[in-house]
Protein backbone atom coordinates (compact mmCIF):
# COMPACT_ATOMS: atom_id res chain seq x y z
CA UNK A 1 0.00 0.00 0.00
CA UNK A 2 1.36 3.42 -0.91
CA UNK A 3 1.16 6.40 1.35
CA UNK A 4 -1.57 7.86 -0.87
CA UNK A 5 -3.59 4.70 -0.46
CA UNK A 6 -3.00 4.81 3.28
CA UNK A 7 -4.24 8.35 3.43
CA UNK A 8 -7.26 7.40 1.34
CA UNK A 9 -8.18 4.51 3.61
CA UNK A 10 -7.65 6.75 6.62
CA UNK A 11 -9.99 9.28 5.07
CA UNK A 12 -12.62 6.65 4.37
CA UNK A 13 -12.31 5.30 7.91
CA UNK A 14 -12.79 8.75 9.34
CA UNK A 15 -15.68 9.40 6.97
CA UNK A 16 -17.29 6.22 8.23
CA UNK A 17 -16.80 7.31 11.81
CA UNK A 18 -18.27 10.79 11.33
CA UNK A 19 -21.99 10.04 10.80
CA UNK A 20 -22.07 7.99 13.98
CA UNK A 21 -21.05 11.01 16.00
CA UNK A 22 -24.47 12.63 16.15
CA UNK A 23 -24.05 14.44 19.43
CA UNK A 24 -21.20 16.76 20.24
CA UNK A 25 -20.81 15.74 23.88
CA UNK A 26 -17.55 17.05 25.36
CA UNK A 27 -16.42 13.52 26.20
CA UNK A 28 -18.03 10.24 25.59
CA UNK A 29 -17.78 7.84 28.51
CA UNK A 30 -17.25 5.02 28.07
CA UNK A 31 -16.08 5.01 24.51
CA UNK A 32 -18.54 3.27 22.23
CA UNK A 33 -17.19 4.32 18.87
CA UNK A 34 -13.87 4.94 17.23
CA UNK A 35 -12.90 8.54 16.56
CA UNK A 36 -10.04 9.46 14.26
CA UNK A 37 -6.91 10.94 15.79
CA UNK A 38 -3.61 11.89 14.17
CA UNK A 39 -0.83 9.31 14.38
CA UNK A 40 2.82 9.71 13.37
CA UNK A 41 5.59 7.23 14.00
CA UNK A 42 8.77 5.78 12.56
CA UNK A 43 8.54 2.31 11.05
CA UNK A 44 11.72 0.59 9.93
CA UNK A 45 13.55 3.91 9.88
CA UNK A 46 10.96 5.73 7.76
CA UNK A 47 8.61 8.42 9.01
CA UNK A 48 4.96 7.46 8.62
CA UNK A 49 2.08 9.89 9.00
CA UNK A 50 0.52 11.93 10.30
CA UNK A 51 -2.44 9.74 9.43
CA UNK A 52 -5.94 10.04 10.79
CA UNK A 53 -6.45 6.71 12.56
CA UNK A 54 -9.43 5.70 14.71
CA UNK A 55 -8.29 5.85 18.32
CA UNK A 56 -8.67 2.42 19.89
CA UNK A 57 -7.61 0.55 16.75
CA UNK A 58 -5.05 -2.09 17.67
CA UNK A 59 -1.55 -1.70 16.21
CA UNK A 60 -1.70 -4.95 14.24
CA UNK A 61 -4.68 -3.55 12.30
CA UNK A 62 -2.84 -0.30 11.71
CA UNK A 63 0.18 -2.15 10.34
CA UNK A 64 -1.96 -4.25 8.01
CA UNK A 65 -4.56 -1.74 6.91
CA UNK A 66 -2.87 1.65 7.11
CA UNK A 67 0.86 1.04 6.78
CA UNK A 68 0.52 -1.75 4.23
CA UNK A 69 2.86 -3.95 6.27
CA UNK A 70 1.25 -7.36 6.36
CA UNK A 71 4.24 -9.36 7.59
CA UNK A 72 3.34 -9.12 11.28
CA UNK A 73 0.98 -11.96 12.10
CA UNK A 74 -2.26 -11.78 14.03
CA UNK A 75 -2.40 -15.03 15.95
CA UNK A 76 -4.40 -15.34 19.14
CA UNK A 77 -5.43 -11.68 19.26
CA UNK A 78 -5.19 -11.69 23.04
CA UNK A 79 -1.53 -11.32 23.83
CA UNK A 80 -0.59 -14.95 24.37
CA UNK A 81 1.14 -16.26 21.25
CA UNK A 82 3.50 -13.35 20.50
CA UNK A 83 3.27 -13.88 16.71
CA UNK A 84 2.35 -10.20 16.36
CA UNK A 85 5.27 -8.65 18.24
CA UNK A 86 7.25 -5.76 16.79
CA UNK A 87 10.44 -4.20 18.12
CA UNK A 88 10.01 -0.92 19.99
CA UNK A 89 13.25 1.08 19.89
CA UNK A 90 13.70 3.31 22.92
CA UNK A 91 15.51 6.65 22.76
CA UNK A 92 18.22 5.25 25.07
CA UNK A 93 19.25 2.68 22.46
CA UNK A 94 17.58 -0.27 24.13
CA UNK A 95 14.72 -2.10 22.51
CA UNK A 96 11.91 -4.41 23.53
CA UNK A 97 9.23 -6.58 22.02
CA UNK A 98 5.70 -5.31 22.14
CA UNK A 99 2.49 -7.18 21.30
CA UNK A 100 0.59 -5.31 18.60
CA UNK A 101 -2.66 -7.26 18.93
CA UNK A 102 -3.34 -5.81 22.39
CA UNK A 103 -1.60 -2.46 22.08
CA UNK A 104 -3.44 0.48 20.59
CA UNK A 105 -1.95 2.11 17.48
CA UNK A 106 -1.73 5.47 19.24
CA UNK A 107 0.57 4.04 21.90
CA UNK A 108 3.20 4.22 19.16
CA UNK A 109 2.62 7.89 18.34
CA UNK A 110 6.03 9.55 18.17
CA UNK A 111 7.83 6.27 18.76
CA UNK A 112 10.05 4.16 16.55
CA UNK A 113 9.42 0.51 15.73
CA UNK A 114 10.84 -2.24 13.54
CA UNK A 115 8.69 -4.91 11.92
CA UNK A 116 9.63 -8.13 10.15
CA UNK A 117 9.83 -6.14 6.88
CA UNK A 118 12.72 -4.10 8.31
CA UNK A 119 15.30 -6.82 9.03
CA UNK A 120 16.72 -7.75 5.61
CA UNK A 121 18.87 -5.43 3.52
CA UNK A 122 17.14 -4.22 0.38
CA UNK A 123 18.30 -2.57 -2.84
CA UNK A 124 16.89 0.66 -4.17
CA UNK A 125 14.08 -1.21 -5.88
CA UNK A 126 13.04 -2.61 -2.51
CA UNK A 127 14.15 -6.14 -3.28
CA UNK A 128 15.74 -8.20 -0.51
CA UNK A 129 19.45 -8.61 -1.16
CA UNK A 130 20.65 -9.94 2.20
CA UNK A 131 18.82 -11.49 5.13
CA UNK A 132 19.62 -10.56 8.70
CA UNK A 133 21.81 -13.08 10.57
CA UNK A 134 18.78 -14.32 12.53
CA UNK A 135 16.69 -14.78 9.39
CA UNK A 136 19.53 -16.56 7.62
CA UNK A 137 20.14 -18.97 10.51
CA UNK A 138 16.42 -19.74 10.73
CA UNK A 139 16.59 -20.82 7.08
CA UNK A 140 19.86 -22.73 7.57
CA UNK A 141 18.41 -24.66 10.51
CA UNK A 142 15.02 -25.30 8.86
CA UNK A 143 13.59 -23.66 11.97
CA UNK A 144 10.04 -23.16 10.80
CA UNK A 145 7.40 -25.10 8.93
CA UNK A 146 4.25 -23.06 8.28
CA UNK A 147 6.10 -19.86 9.21
CA UNK A 148 3.18 -18.12 10.85
CA UNK A 149 5.01 -17.52 14.13
CA UNK A 150 8.32 -16.69 12.43
CA UNK A 151 8.05 -12.87 12.36
CA UNK A 152 7.62 -12.93 16.13
CA UNK A 153 10.56 -15.28 16.63
CA UNK A 154 12.76 -13.13 14.36
CA UNK A 155 11.92 -10.03 16.38
CA UNK A 156 12.45 -11.78 19.71
CA UNK A 157 15.79 -13.25 18.66
CA UNK A 158 16.92 -9.91 17.21
CA UNK A 159 16.10 -8.11 20.46
CA UNK A 160 18.14 -10.74 22.30
CA UNK A 161 21.13 -10.51 19.95
CA UNK A 162 21.18 -6.71 20.21
CA UNK A 163 20.95 -6.89 23.98
CA UNK A 164 23.88 -9.32 24.13
CA UNK A 165 25.88 -6.99 21.88
CA UNK A 166 25.37 -4.23 24.47
CA UNK A 167 25.84 -6.54 27.48
CA UNK A 168 27.56 -9.85 26.71
CA UNK A 169 26.79 -12.83 28.92
CA UNK A 170 28.74 -15.88 30.07
CA UNK A 171 28.75 -18.92 27.84
CA UNK A 172 27.07 -20.96 30.54
CA UNK A 173 24.10 -18.60 30.52
CA UNK A 174 23.46 -18.64 26.78
CA UNK A 175 20.84 -21.37 26.72
CA UNK A 176 18.86 -19.97 29.62
CA UNK A 177 19.02 -16.48 28.07
CA UNK A 178 17.63 -17.86 24.80
CA UNK A 179 14.96 -19.74 26.70
CA UNK A 180 13.93 -16.60 28.55
CA UNK A 181 13.95 -14.50 25.39
CA UNK A 182 11.85 -16.89 23.27
CA UNK A 183 9.74 -18.39 26.02
CA UNK A 184 6.61 -16.37 25.34
CA UNK A 185 6.55 -17.29 21.66
CA UNK A 186 4.26 -20.11 20.65
CA UNK A 187 4.88 -22.27 17.57
CA UNK A 188 1.99 -24.58 16.77
CA UNK A 189 4.14 -26.66 14.39
CA UNK A 190 6.24 -27.19 17.54
CA UNK A 191 9.52 -26.40 15.82
CA UNK A 192 10.92 -24.88 18.97
CA UNK A 193 14.15 -26.91 19.05
CA UNK A 194 15.30 -25.67 15.67
CA UNK A 195 14.45 -22.09 16.49
CA UNK A 196 16.43 -22.36 19.72
CA UNK A 197 19.36 -24.06 17.97
CA UNK A 198 19.43 -21.40 15.28
CA UNK A 199 19.47 -18.59 17.84
CA UNK A 200 22.24 -20.34 19.77
CA UNK A 201 24.17 -20.61 16.51
CA UNK A 202 23.82 -16.85 15.94
CA UNK A 203 24.84 -16.07 19.52
CA UNK A 204 27.90 -18.32 19.45
CA UNK A 205 29.07 -17.34 15.95
CA UNK A 206 28.67 -13.58 16.34
CA UNK A 207 31.74 -12.01 17.96
CA UNK A 208 31.19 -10.02 21.13
CA UNK A 209 27.96 -11.58 22.39
CA UNK A 210 29.49 -14.10 24.77
CA UNK A 211 32.20 -13.10 27.25
CA UNK A 212 34.14 -16.36 27.36
CA UNK A 213 33.49 -17.65 23.86
CA UNK A 214 36.50 -19.66 22.78
Amino acid sequence: MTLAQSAASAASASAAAQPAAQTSAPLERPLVQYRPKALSLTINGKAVGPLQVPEGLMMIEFLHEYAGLTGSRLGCGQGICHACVVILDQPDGSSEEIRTCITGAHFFNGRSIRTIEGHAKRNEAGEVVELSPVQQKFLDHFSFQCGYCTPGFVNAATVLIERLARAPIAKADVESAIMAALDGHICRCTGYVRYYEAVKDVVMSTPGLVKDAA
Partner: protein
Amino acid sequence: MTRALLTRLAHGVLLAACALTLAACGHDESSGSSAAFTPTPEQIARGRYLTKAADCAACHTAQDGAPFAGGAPIASPYGTFYGSNITPDKAHGIGKWSADDFYAALHDGNARGKRLYPSMPYTSYRQLSRADTDAIYAYLMTVKPVAVDTPANALKFPYNLRFGMAVWDMLFLKNALPDASAGQSADWQRGRYLANALGHCAECHTPRNVFGQLVDAKPLSGAALGRVVAPDITPAGLAGRGWTAADLQTFFSVGIAPQGSAFGEMYPVVHLSTQYLDKDDVRALSVYLLGDTPPAPQPVKAVNADAAQLAAGRSVYLAVCAGCHGLVGEGKPHVAVPMNGNSTLRQANPHNLLVAMLDGIKTQHFAGLESMQAMPAFASTLSDDELSQLANYLRATWGGQPANVAAADVKALR
Protein backbone atom coordinates in the same frame (compact mmCIF):
# COMPACT_ATOMS: atom_id res chain seq x y z
CA MET B 1 9.53 7.32 60.99
CA THR B 2 9.32 9.02 64.41
CA ARG B 3 5.91 7.48 64.91
CA ALA B 4 7.29 4.05 64.12
CA LEU B 5 10.07 4.56 66.65
CA LEU B 6 7.63 5.72 69.31
CA THR B 7 5.48 2.70 68.60
CA ARG B 8 8.42 0.38 69.02
CA LEU B 9 9.42 2.17 72.20
CA ALA B 10 5.91 1.76 73.57
CA HIS B 11 6.01 -1.90 72.67
CA GLY B 12 9.35 -2.24 74.44
CA VAL B 13 7.86 -0.78 77.62
CA LEU B 14 4.91 -3.12 77.42
CA LEU B 15 7.30 -5.99 76.98
CA ALA B 16 9.33 -5.04 80.04
CA ALA B 17 6.09 -5.01 82.00
CA CYS B 18 5.22 -8.47 80.81
CA ALA B 19 8.67 -9.79 81.64
CA LEU B 20 8.12 -8.66 85.22
CA THR B 21 4.63 -10.14 85.29
CA LEU B 22 5.90 -13.46 84.07
CA ALA B 23 8.75 -13.47 86.55
CA ALA B 24 6.33 -12.67 89.36
CA CYS B 25 3.93 -15.43 88.42
CA GLY B 26 6.58 -18.06 87.83
CA HIS B 27 4.49 -19.14 84.88
CA ASP B 28 4.77 -22.81 84.00
CA GLU B 29 3.83 -23.59 80.44
CA SER B 30 4.87 -27.19 80.07
CA SER B 31 2.52 -29.25 77.98
CA GLY B 32 -0.28 -31.28 79.44
CA SER B 33 -1.29 -34.84 78.94
CA SER B 34 -0.73 -36.85 75.79
CA ALA B 35 -3.81 -39.00 75.92
CA ALA B 36 -4.13 -41.74 73.29
CA PHE B 37 -5.91 -40.52 70.20
CA THR B 38 -7.46 -42.94 67.73
CA PRO B 39 -9.08 -41.09 64.86
CA THR B 40 -11.88 -42.51 62.74
CA PRO B 41 -11.73 -42.35 58.91
CA GLU B 42 -14.69 -39.93 58.99
CA GLN B 43 -12.80 -37.72 61.39
CA ILE B 44 -9.77 -37.69 59.10
CA ALA B 45 -11.90 -36.85 56.06
CA ARG B 46 -13.62 -34.11 58.03
CA GLY B 47 -10.22 -32.83 59.16
CA ARG B 48 -9.00 -32.68 55.59
CA TYR B 49 -11.97 -30.49 54.67
CA LEU B 50 -11.52 -28.29 57.74
CA THR B 51 -7.79 -27.91 57.04
CA LYS B 52 -8.73 -26.43 53.67
CA ALA B 53 -11.50 -24.28 55.16
CA ALA B 54 -8.97 -22.95 57.70
CA ASP B 55 -6.47 -22.36 54.86
CA CYS B 56 -3.58 -23.87 56.84
CA ALA B 57 -1.63 -24.41 53.62
CA ALA B 58 -1.44 -20.66 52.93
CA CYS B 59 1.27 -20.27 55.57
CA HIS B 60 2.34 -23.84 56.31
CA THR B 61 3.11 -24.91 52.73
CA ALA B 62 5.90 -22.96 51.04
CA GLN B 63 5.96 -22.40 47.31
CA ASP B 64 7.41 -25.59 45.80
CA GLY B 65 7.65 -27.02 49.32
CA ALA B 66 6.20 -30.25 50.65
CA PRO B 67 2.63 -29.99 51.94
CA PHE B 68 2.49 -28.50 55.46
CA ALA B 69 6.29 -28.60 55.86
CA GLY B 70 6.30 -24.85 56.61
CA GLY B 71 8.63 -22.13 55.41
CA ALA B 72 6.19 -19.79 53.69
CA PRO B 73 7.22 -16.21 54.54
CA ILE B 74 4.61 -13.84 56.01
CA ALA B 75 5.77 -10.26 55.70
CA SER B 76 4.41 -7.79 58.26
CA PRO B 77 5.26 -4.39 59.71
CA TYR B 78 6.94 -6.27 62.60
CA GLY B 79 9.24 -8.29 60.38
CA THR B 80 8.94 -11.58 58.54
CA PHE B 81 7.30 -14.62 60.10
CA TYR B 82 7.65 -18.12 58.72
CA GLY B 83 4.89 -20.71 58.80
CA SER B 84 6.07 -23.72 60.79
CA ASN B 85 6.37 -27.37 59.84
CA ILE B 86 3.10 -29.01 60.89
CA THR B 87 3.74 -32.42 59.36
CA PRO B 88 3.88 -35.31 61.86
CA ASP B 89 7.70 -35.40 61.76
CA LYS B 90 8.78 -35.99 65.37
CA ALA B 91 11.85 -33.75 65.32
CA HIS B 92 10.84 -30.96 62.93
CA GLY B 93 7.08 -31.07 62.86
CA ILE B 94 4.30 -31.75 65.35
CA GLY B 95 4.79 -35.53 65.52
CA LYS B 96 5.22 -35.45 69.29
CA TRP B 97 2.16 -33.31 69.85
CA SER B 98 -1.01 -34.66 71.45
CA ALA B 99 -4.50 -33.57 70.42
CA ASP B 100 -4.49 -31.53 73.63
CA ASP B 101 -1.29 -29.78 72.59
CA PHE B 102 -2.79 -29.05 69.20
CA TYR B 103 -5.93 -27.62 70.77
CA ALA B 104 -3.83 -25.44 73.08
CA ALA B 105 -1.93 -24.03 70.10
CA LEU B 106 -5.09 -23.20 68.16
CA HIS B 107 -7.07 -22.05 71.17
CA ASP B 108 -4.49 -20.30 73.34
CA GLY B 109 -1.54 -19.66 71.05
CA ASN B 110 0.47 -21.97 73.27
CA ALA B 111 2.65 -24.33 71.24
CA ARG B 112 3.82 -26.78 73.91
CA GLY B 113 5.02 -23.98 76.14
CA LYS B 114 6.14 -21.61 73.38
CA ARG B 115 3.99 -18.51 72.91
CA LEU B 116 2.88 -18.18 69.31
CA TYR B 117 2.73 -14.87 67.52
CA PRO B 118 -0.69 -13.85 66.19
CA SER B 119 0.66 -14.27 62.67
CA MET B 120 -0.65 -17.74 63.52
CA PRO B 121 -4.32 -16.74 63.79
CA TYR B 122 -5.14 -18.46 67.08
CA THR B 123 -6.93 -15.18 67.70
CA SER B 124 -9.52 -16.51 65.23
CA TYR B 125 -8.99 -20.26 65.64
CA ARG B 126 -9.78 -19.80 69.35
CA GLN B 127 -13.42 -20.04 68.33
CA LEU B 128 -12.97 -23.50 66.76
CA SER B 129 -14.79 -26.35 68.47
CA ARG B 130 -12.72 -29.04 70.14
CA ALA B 131 -14.27 -31.58 67.75
CA ASP B 132 -12.97 -29.58 64.79
CA THR B 133 -9.44 -29.09 66.14
CA ASP B 134 -9.33 -32.83 66.85
CA ALA B 135 -10.40 -33.56 63.27
CA ILE B 136 -7.74 -31.21 61.87
CA TYR B 137 -5.18 -32.84 64.15
CA ALA B 138 -6.30 -36.30 63.00
CA TYR B 139 -5.87 -35.29 59.36
CA LEU B 140 -2.47 -33.65 59.87
CA MET B 141 -1.20 -36.81 61.56
CA THR B 142 -1.88 -38.66 58.28
CA VAL B 143 0.21 -36.23 56.21
CA LYS B 144 3.65 -37.39 55.07
CA PRO B 145 6.22 -36.38 57.72
CA VAL B 146 8.87 -34.06 56.34
CA ALA B 147 12.20 -33.50 58.11
CA VAL B 148 12.61 -29.81 57.33
CA ASP B 149 13.44 -27.09 59.81
CA THR B 150 11.27 -23.99 59.91
CA PRO B 151 13.31 -20.86 59.17
CA ALA B 152 13.69 -18.54 62.17
CA ASN B 153 11.42 -15.49 62.17
CA ALA B 154 13.21 -12.30 61.18
CA LEU B 155 11.54 -9.81 63.51
CA LYS B 156 12.49 -6.31 64.59
CA PHE B 157 13.18 -5.48 68.23
CA PRO B 158 11.21 -5.67 70.50
CA TYR B 159 8.86 -7.98 68.58
CA ASN B 160 11.51 -10.69 68.49
CA LEU B 161 11.09 -11.19 72.26
CA ARG B 162 8.57 -13.98 72.19
CA PHE B 163 7.69 -14.01 75.91
CA GLY B 164 5.96 -10.65 75.41
CA MET B 165 3.14 -12.51 73.73
CA ALA B 166 1.93 -13.80 77.10
CA VAL B 167 0.88 -10.31 78.11
CA TRP B 168 -0.38 -9.52 74.63
CA ASP B 169 -2.66 -12.55 74.92
CA MET B 170 -3.79 -11.47 78.37
CA LEU B 171 -4.75 -8.06 77.01
CA PHE B 172 -6.03 -8.80 73.54
CA LEU B 173 -7.02 -12.45 73.13
CA LYS B 174 -10.82 -12.59 72.93
CA ASN B 175 -13.20 -15.52 72.97
CA ALA B 176 -15.26 -14.15 70.09
CA LEU B 177 -14.83 -11.62 67.33
CA PRO B 178 -17.39 -8.87 66.71
CA ASP B 179 -19.84 -9.25 63.82
CA ALA B 180 -20.02 -6.86 60.91
CA SER B 181 -23.44 -8.09 59.86
CA ALA B 182 -26.70 -8.88 61.63
CA GLY B 183 -28.45 -12.24 61.49
CA GLN B 184 -29.75 -15.26 63.34
CA SER B 185 -30.43 -17.89 60.66
CA ALA B 186 -28.64 -21.22 60.67
CA ASP B 187 -26.73 -20.12 57.57
CA TRP B 188 -25.64 -16.93 59.29
CA GLN B 189 -24.46 -18.89 62.37
CA ARG B 190 -22.55 -21.36 60.23
CA GLY B 191 -21.14 -18.50 58.12
CA ARG B 192 -19.96 -16.77 61.27
CA TYR B 193 -18.03 -19.88 62.26
CA LEU B 194 -16.60 -20.22 58.74
CA ALA B 195 -15.59 -16.56 58.47
CA ASN B 196 -14.50 -15.76 62.02
CA ALA B 197 -13.06 -19.09 63.20
CA LEU B 198 -12.00 -21.23 60.24
CA GLY B 199 -11.50 -18.72 57.43
CA HIS B 200 -9.95 -16.16 59.80
CA CYS B 201 -11.13 -13.36 57.47
CA ALA B 202 -10.72 -10.74 60.19
CA GLU B 203 -6.96 -11.29 60.38
CA CYS B 204 -6.56 -9.42 57.09
CA HIS B 205 -9.86 -7.57 56.65
CA THR B 206 -10.13 -5.99 60.11
CA PRO B 207 -7.83 -3.05 60.84
CA ARG B 208 -5.28 -3.40 63.64
CA ASN B 209 -4.41 -1.06 66.45
CA VAL B 210 -1.03 0.11 67.62
CA PHE B 211 -0.18 -3.19 69.33
CA GLY B 212 -1.30 -5.22 66.34
CA GLN B 213 -4.60 -6.21 67.89
CA LEU B 214 -7.78 -6.21 65.81
CA VAL B 215 -9.95 -3.11 66.20
CA ASP B 216 -13.21 -4.34 67.71
CA ALA B 217 -15.23 -1.36 66.54
CA LYS B 218 -14.47 -1.88 62.86
CA PRO B 219 -14.84 -5.58 62.05
CA LEU B 220 -14.04 -6.50 58.43
CA SER B 221 -13.94 -2.86 57.35
CA GLY B 222 -10.68 -3.27 55.45
CA ALA B 223 -7.02 -3.12 56.42
CA ALA B 224 -3.59 -2.68 54.91
CA LEU B 225 -1.15 -5.41 55.91
CA GLY B 226 0.56 -6.10 52.61
CA ARG B 227 1.08 -4.47 49.23
CA VAL B 228 -2.54 -5.15 48.28
CA VAL B 229 -5.02 -3.74 50.77
CA ALA B 230 -7.70 -6.09 52.09
CA PRO B 231 -10.94 -4.32 51.13
CA ASP B 232 -13.97 -3.48 53.23
CA ILE B 233 -16.16 -6.61 53.36
CA THR B 234 -18.87 -5.32 55.67
CA PRO B 235 -22.40 -5.61 54.24
CA ALA B 236 -22.36 -1.90 53.35
CA GLY B 237 -18.89 -2.14 51.83
CA LEU B 238 -19.76 -5.15 49.70
CA ALA B 239 -23.12 -3.83 48.54
CA GLY B 240 -21.51 -0.47 47.80
CA ARG B 241 -19.29 -2.24 45.28
CA GLY B 242 -22.16 -4.17 43.74
CA TRP B 243 -21.74 -7.53 45.46
CA THR B 244 -24.71 -9.87 45.88
CA ALA B 245 -24.85 -13.16 47.74
CA ALA B 246 -24.88 -15.07 44.44
CA ASP B 247 -21.82 -13.21 43.14
CA LEU B 248 -19.95 -13.75 46.41
CA GLN B 249 -20.68 -17.46 46.14
CA THR B 250 -19.29 -17.49 42.59
CA PHE B 251 -16.25 -15.59 43.80
CA PHE B 252 -15.53 -18.04 46.63
CA SER B 253 -16.17 -21.12 44.47
CA VAL B 254 -14.43 -20.04 41.27
CA GLY B 255 -12.32 -16.99 42.07
CA ILE B 256 -14.01 -14.80 39.48
CA ALA B 257 -17.32 -12.99 39.60
CA PRO B 258 -18.77 -10.18 37.48
CA GLN B 259 -17.15 -7.74 39.94
CA GLY B 260 -13.66 -9.07 39.30
CA SER B 261 -11.18 -11.80 40.17
CA ALA B 262 -9.30 -12.63 43.34
CA PHE B 263 -5.81 -11.13 43.23
CA GLY B 264 -3.08 -10.22 45.68
CA GLU B 265 -3.28 -12.26 48.85
CA MET B 266 -6.90 -13.22 48.19
CA TYR B 267 -5.87 -15.29 45.17
CA PRO B 268 -4.16 -18.03 47.23
CA VAL B 269 -7.07 -17.91 49.67
CA VAL B 270 -9.47 -18.90 46.89
CA HIS B 271 -6.91 -21.23 45.35
CA LEU B 272 -6.09 -23.14 48.54
CA SER B 273 -9.25 -22.74 50.57
CA THR B 274 -12.60 -21.31 49.52
CA GLN B 275 -12.88 -23.17 46.20
CA TYR B 276 -13.01 -26.41 48.22
CA LEU B 277 -15.89 -25.33 50.43
CA ASP B 278 -19.12 -27.22 49.77
CA LYS B 279 -22.17 -25.40 48.43
CA ASP B 280 -23.82 -25.11 51.83
CA ASP B 281 -20.74 -23.57 53.39
CA VAL B 282 -20.22 -21.14 50.52
CA ARG B 283 -23.83 -20.04 50.86
CA ALA B 284 -23.43 -19.69 54.62
CA LEU B 285 -20.30 -17.59 54.18
CA SER B 286 -22.09 -15.21 51.80
CA VAL B 287 -25.07 -14.99 54.19
CA TYR B 288 -22.79 -14.11 57.10
CA LEU B 289 -20.91 -11.45 55.16
CA LEU B 290 -24.05 -9.72 53.89
CA GLY B 291 -26.31 -10.51 56.86
CA ASP B 292 -29.74 -12.13 56.96
CA THR B 293 -31.22 -9.09 55.22
CA PRO B 294 -28.54 -8.11 52.70
CA PRO B 295 -28.39 -4.48 51.55
CA ALA B 296 -29.26 -3.90 47.90
CA PRO B 297 -26.22 -3.88 45.59
CA GLN B 298 -25.48 -0.30 44.55
CA PRO B 299 -25.40 0.64 40.87
CA VAL B 300 -22.36 2.59 39.67
CA LYS B 301 -22.99 6.31 40.25
CA ALA B 302 -22.50 8.84 37.49
CA VAL B 303 -19.52 11.04 38.31
CA ASN B 304 -18.67 14.49 37.03
CA ALA B 305 -15.03 15.05 36.33
CA ASP B 306 -12.70 17.30 34.41
CA ALA B 307 -13.16 16.45 30.72
CA ALA B 308 -9.57 17.13 29.70
CA GLN B 309 -8.22 14.85 32.42
CA LEU B 310 -10.64 12.09 31.42
CA ALA B 311 -9.81 12.47 27.74
CA ALA B 312 -6.13 12.02 28.56
CA GLY B 313 -6.94 8.97 30.67
CA ARG B 314 -9.08 7.50 27.93
CA SER B 315 -6.19 7.79 25.48
CA VAL B 316 -3.97 5.83 27.85
CA TYR B 317 -6.74 3.27 28.30
CA LEU B 318 -7.14 2.83 24.54
CA ALA B 319 -3.38 2.55 24.07
CA VAL B 320 -2.51 -0.09 26.63
CA CYS B 321 -5.66 -1.47 28.33
CA ALA B 322 -8.50 -1.74 25.84
CA GLY B 323 -6.84 -4.62 23.96
CA CYS B 324 -7.77 -6.94 26.82
CA HIS B 325 -10.24 -5.07 29.03
CA GLY B 326 -12.33 -3.98 26.05
CA LEU B 327 -13.21 -0.65 24.47
CA VAL B 328 -16.26 -0.32 26.70
CA GLY B 329 -14.66 -2.05 29.69
CA GLU B 330 -16.46 -5.29 28.96
CA GLY B 331 -13.36 -7.49 29.47
CA LYS B 332 -12.50 -10.69 27.62
CA PRO B 333 -13.51 -14.12 28.91
CA HIS B 334 -10.51 -16.09 30.23
CA VAL B 335 -8.21 -13.13 29.43
CA ALA B 336 -9.06 -10.05 31.47
CA VAL B 337 -11.83 -9.04 33.85
CA PRO B 338 -14.38 -6.36 32.94
CA MET B 339 -13.63 -2.85 34.15
CA ASN B 340 -17.29 -1.88 34.06
CA GLY B 341 -18.46 -2.18 37.67
CA ASN B 342 -15.18 -3.71 38.81
CA SER B 343 -14.98 -4.01 42.59
CA THR B 344 -11.45 -2.59 42.78
CA LEU B 345 -12.41 0.48 40.75
CA ARG B 346 -15.31 1.02 43.12
CA GLN B 347 -13.12 1.22 46.22
CA ALA B 348 -12.91 4.78 47.51
CA ASN B 349 -9.19 4.27 48.09
CA PRO B 350 -7.38 3.94 44.73
CA HIS B 351 -4.52 1.98 46.37
CA ASN B 352 -5.27 -1.47 44.95
CA LEU B 353 -6.06 -0.09 41.49
CA LEU B 354 -2.70 1.69 41.40
CA VAL B 355 -0.85 -1.35 42.72
CA ALA B 356 -2.41 -3.56 40.04
CA MET B 357 -1.42 -1.10 37.31
CA LEU B 358 2.13 -0.62 38.63
CA ASP B 359 2.94 -4.25 39.50
CA GLY B 360 0.73 -6.18 37.09
CA ILE B 361 -0.91 -9.47 38.04
CA LYS B 362 0.50 -12.89 37.26
CA THR B 363 -1.42 -15.52 35.28
CA GLN B 364 -4.11 -16.90 37.52
CA HIS B 365 -5.70 -20.33 37.38
CA PHE B 366 -9.07 -20.69 38.98
CA ALA B 367 -11.43 -23.53 39.75
CA GLY B 368 -12.33 -25.74 36.81
CA LEU B 369 -10.80 -24.55 33.56
CA GLU B 370 -11.13 -20.86 34.35
CA SER B 371 -8.05 -18.71 34.18
CA MET B 372 -7.01 -15.11 33.65
CA GLN B 373 -4.05 -14.07 31.57
CA ALA B 374 -1.09 -12.24 33.08
CA MET B 375 -1.51 -8.47 33.26
CA PRO B 376 1.72 -6.61 32.47
CA ALA B 377 3.23 -4.21 34.97
CA PHE B 378 3.08 -0.65 33.70
CA ALA B 379 5.51 0.91 36.18
CA SER B 380 8.17 1.38 33.52
CA THR B 381 5.81 2.00 30.58
CA LEU B 382 3.61 4.75 31.99
CA SER B 383 4.53 7.92 33.89
CA ASP B 384 2.97 9.04 37.18
CA ASP B 385 0.84 11.53 35.24
CA GLU B 386 -0.36 8.93 32.77
CA LEU B 387 -1.18 6.43 35.50
CA SER B 388 -3.10 8.99 37.55
CA GLN B 389 -5.05 10.09 34.45
CA LEU B 390 -5.80 6.46 33.67
CA ALA B 391 -6.88 5.75 37.25
CA ASN B 392 -9.18 8.77 37.20
CA TYR B 393 -10.72 7.75 33.88
CA LEU B 394 -11.36 4.25 35.22
CA ARG B 395 -12.74 5.43 38.57
CA ALA B 396 -15.02 8.09 37.09
CA THR B 397 -16.20 5.99 34.17
CA TRP B 398 -16.76 2.56 35.68
CA GLY B 399 -16.20 2.88 39.40
CA GLY B 400 -18.52 5.69 40.46
CA GLN B 401 -15.58 7.20 42.32
CA PRO B 402 -14.24 10.77 42.12
CA ALA B 403 -11.36 11.49 39.75
CA ASN B 404 -9.14 12.56 42.63
CA VAL B 405 -5.98 10.52 42.08
CA ALA B 406 -2.87 12.70 41.85
CA ALA B 407 0.46 11.87 40.25
CA ALA B 408 1.97 11.99 43.75
CA ASP B 409 -0.35 9.13 44.82
CA VAL B 410 1.13 6.99 42.06
CA LYS B 411 4.67 8.02 42.92
CA ALA B 412 4.16 7.07 46.56
CA LEU B 413 3.41 3.49 45.56
CA ARG B 414 6.33 2.98 43.18
